């Protein structure tokens, strides 16, 4: 039972249809006699109407098949695998990144070499294949769209289809320089090449175009659009022929 004059809370409860029927009638009588209070209440009602109207469009979005409960249930079954993957990502973050801790000496030496993290990522994901991908693309267009969610105005994914390579999966990584991604290309013979992208890091370590090889891997690297890039492939495989940017 409310008392008159109504408290502000009562007025809100009225707007939200949360008053008892008897209270509602009591309040309506009061509002009829107090136009300034009624105007306040109407303004709130009006805002609520506008909000409902403007948010109703958001209910009409095209369905996203990835959100279907049956699919979600399926993915949960692979969860233990994913937990393992999360642990692996942390490990990778440490080993790709680290200038800190007990790992410091090796890591410092490694990071002097351009895009050492790109080669390390290739070793872990393309060669040892220990982790499921974050994204599996159907074609280069969707892979590009996936990448564009994370990197702004970056160079386009190179088109290697002439040599038979197509982008098949993408992975997100954290490095000392910031968030990185690796897109893996594969050809019909199962050979692999990776495209790697990350920010230059706090010291803006942009790279002149170059290439180097180490431990059975070769990397071509360059900078542009605010990021550093590398293409990595095994040395026993011809390096990808790329359009110059």
């Amino acid at each position, binding site marked *: 039972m409310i008392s008159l004059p109504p408290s502000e809370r009562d007025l809100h409860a009225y707007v*939200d249809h949360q008053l008892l029927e008897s209270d509602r009638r009591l309040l309506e009588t009061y509002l009829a006699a107090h136009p300034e209070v009624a105007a306040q209440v109407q303004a709130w009602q009006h805002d609520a109407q*506008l909000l409902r109207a*403007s*948010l109703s469009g*958001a209910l009409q*979005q095209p369905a996203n098949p990835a*959100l*279907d409960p049956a699919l*979600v249930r399926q993915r949960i079954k692979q969860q233990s695998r994913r937990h393992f993957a999360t642990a692996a990502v942390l490990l990778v973050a440490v080993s790709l990144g680290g200038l800190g801790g007990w790992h410091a000496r090796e890591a410092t030496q490694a990071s002097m070499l351009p895009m050492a993290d790109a080669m390390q990522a290739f070793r872990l994901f393309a060669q040892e294949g220990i982790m499921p991908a974050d994204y599996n693309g159907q074609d280069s267009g969707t892979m590009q769209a996936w990448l564009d969610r994370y990197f702004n105005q970056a160079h386009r994914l190179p088109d290697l289809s002439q040599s038979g390579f197509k982008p098949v999966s993408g992975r997100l990584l954290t490095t000392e320089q910031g*968030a990185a991604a690796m897109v893996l290309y594969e050809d019909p013979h199962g050979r692999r090449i990776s495209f790697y992208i990350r920010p230059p890091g706090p010291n803006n370590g942009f790279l002149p175009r170059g290439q180097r090889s180490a431990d059975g891997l070769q990397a071509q690297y360059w900078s542009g659009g605010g990021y550093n890039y590398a293409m990595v492939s095994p040395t026993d495989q011809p390096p990808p022929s790329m359009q110059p940017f």
Partner: protein
Amino acid sequence: MPMHELDEPLRELIPRLRRFAVSLTRNASSADDLVQATLERAINRWADKRIEGDLRAWLFSILYRQFLDAHRRTRRYARMLEFFTGRDDAQPSVERTVIAQSTLQAFDQLNTEQRALLLWVSVEGLSYKEVADILDVPIGTVMSRLSRARQALRQLSDGEIASPSLRILK
């Protein structure tokens, strides 16, 4: 209820969950990631949930917590910010209608809890009690926060009209 019987009611609520998620993240793809995480958690925890109250309110509460957790994590790992909220964070979506634009712009300027409160109460029509359960606060607290949210929305909507964005551009 056996597990798979949950699927159909969940499916029906997905548009509402996506709408709520967009109003929190302001970004469609982050919103869908959030909804997906919510569905996973709901399915995982369904077995432990005693059937009480509204499925919708329960899902909203899971989604809201997940969003707050992700938000806290992003602050901790500032570097990963783009991954959770996206770069085009504050861009309004196309389908928003012109007529309600100033209300919507005002709504987008409210803080997270105020946006959630107004969506739950004004748009979804949840009861104060349900909202109190979600936020784990007394009903009286819900009412005073709601009142503040509404005043803020009112002021911001009026402010939009009083100072058109052209003035800012110079």
